[in-house]
């Protein structure tokens, strides 16, 4: 007969491998979200009206549909329909990244809009084009301002990544479930998974806070 403690001891290395998967999914989708969200934010602030509308639709789509629905829609529906053979892991990053891009675009849009108008004018007046001013003056400031919002996005994504277990991604939650259903030690295993998520949230937001303090623009409240 195995005690809760011995089960935990034996399964911990297996669970910790899941932490890596979780982290790759989270960091992958966070990066994808930034990569897509940044141009979306710029387009939504400076773009022509039709572009703003299209971006608005995109954001509405990914913010309006539950994560689980999107995961199933893409994994079982859209990608097979397009004859694209993506692994559950890849689909998890694509879907989480797309959702995150919608949220991140709004974080960044707010940050861009909070930069005083004079910055753009000052940049234009010393000979920078619109695009140069955005790249050299607006975005370096906006990205700094976006870090607190970004840290929130990280913790949301981290927890949302647990849902990808439904596609069979071997992340932390999936592994906890796997062990629990075989050993019947549900309490201790889910407690342990939850605890690890808490630690990951804590470490991540701490790191981003430290980054924020380091690069923060002085003179802004």
């Amino acid at each position, binding site marked *: 007969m195995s005690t809760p403690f011995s089960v935990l001891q034996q399964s911990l290395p297996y669970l910790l491998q899941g932490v890596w998967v979780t982290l790759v999914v989270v960091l992958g989708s966070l990066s994808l979200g930034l990569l897509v969200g940044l141009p979306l934010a710029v387009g939504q602030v400076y773009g022509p009206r039709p572009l703003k509308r299209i971006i608005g639709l995109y954001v509405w789509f990914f913010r309006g549909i539950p994560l689980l629905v999107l995961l199933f829609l893409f994994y079982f529906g859209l990608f097979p329909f397009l004859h694209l053979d993506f692994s559950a892991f890849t689909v998890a990053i694509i879907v989480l990244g797309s959702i995150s891009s919608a949220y991140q675009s709004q974080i960044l849009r707010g940050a861009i809009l909070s930069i005083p108008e004079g910055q753009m*004018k000052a*940049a234009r*007046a010393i000979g920078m084009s619109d695009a140069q001013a955005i790249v050299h003056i607006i975005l370096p400031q906006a990205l700094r301002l976006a870090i607190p919002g970004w840290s929130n996005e990280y913790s949301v994504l981290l927890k949302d990544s647990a849902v990808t277990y439904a596609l069979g991604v071997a992340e932390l939650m999936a592994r906890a479930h796997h062990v629990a259903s075989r050993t019947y030690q549900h309490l201790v295993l889910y407690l342990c998974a939850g605890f690890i998520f808490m630690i990951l949230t804590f470490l991540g937001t701490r790191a981003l806070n430290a980054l924020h303090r380091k690069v923060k623009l002085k003179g802004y409240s």
Partner: protein
Amino acid sequence: MSFLNVQNVSCRYGNRCVIRHLSMTLEKGEIGCLLGRSGCGKSTLLRAIAGFEPLRDGTITLGDRLLSHRTHLVPPHKRQIGLVFQDYALFPHLTVAANVSFGLRHLPRNQRKARTAEVLRLVRMEGMEERYPHEISGGQQQRVAVARALAPRPMLLLLDEPFSNLDPCLRVDLALEVREILKKQDITALMVTHDQGEAFAVADRVGVLDGGELAQWDEPTRLFLDPATRTVAEFVGVSSFLPGHLISSKAAATSLGVLPIRRQSTSPAGEGVDILLRPPDLVQDPAGPVSAVVVRSVLSAAGSMYLVELDSGDRLYAVSPERFPRPAGSRVRLRLEPPPPGGWPAYGTDGHDRETCPFDPTIAKNKEFPVAV
């Protein structure tokens, strides 16, 4: 053809006309200043010249280049026009040196460095290159902003209330210093402000904008001594108006007797006019012929200034050579100084838009005591 030519320019926000058929010119090397209350359209005009505001009508040319037209708008970064803002608008993520050298990115590295050092020396900010904007004072930030604007050698420098955020004692000092810098570099500049002290300290030519129209565009002394309209008179210096009525085209009867006047329009005799008197025109003098009661007194650096009430009930400003002002309610005697050549400036009472409220804080704010011209 002047260097900067603003020809018949109109600007609108939606249906509201912010600038109406405004024309003004500036010669090369001249410093112009537009004065006006908030909302008079002065900043809009500056934005239009900088290229951030499309025109409904008219043209703007600089040198021999057409910058703005109803259907043609050179983008701001291709205008070679420098801008200095009220809130400095330095780039907070860049050092002082980087702020200045950003506008020089087309130059090779060593020339860039040399020019940056040169303009920073010009504004006396050498040694501060590695500081960040938040690490220096407001006055220093504005110096850096001036250096940043001058670095790419603009054809025209626009200054939007550049000294308004600085404390008053620093304001005129920095304004005078900026004038020297601009003159030394032979820079053509146009500034807007609501502070006449700044305007008179800096400008070769001052204009007063009122309701989107340029009421007068003239040398500072002419603006002060011969205001074209009542609004200009009110806005520049401290003014009091003595009511009277015309007895001929060149004289008006008032409670101070018949006074010679000059005015642009010809009106029938008997019509009411307001005669502009500046505080130094009415002087406290024990032997003076006019008797009045002090309503309020202000102690200023040059002596006392009174708001007095004549026996006729007219209220006017007067100056006193006495060091300490008499208390309110005292009876004083006054003398009217001889009129300026051509007579006292006078304005019709019919179209007058605003009643000057003596010692109204909003007006007093714009008027410094004493008026130094």
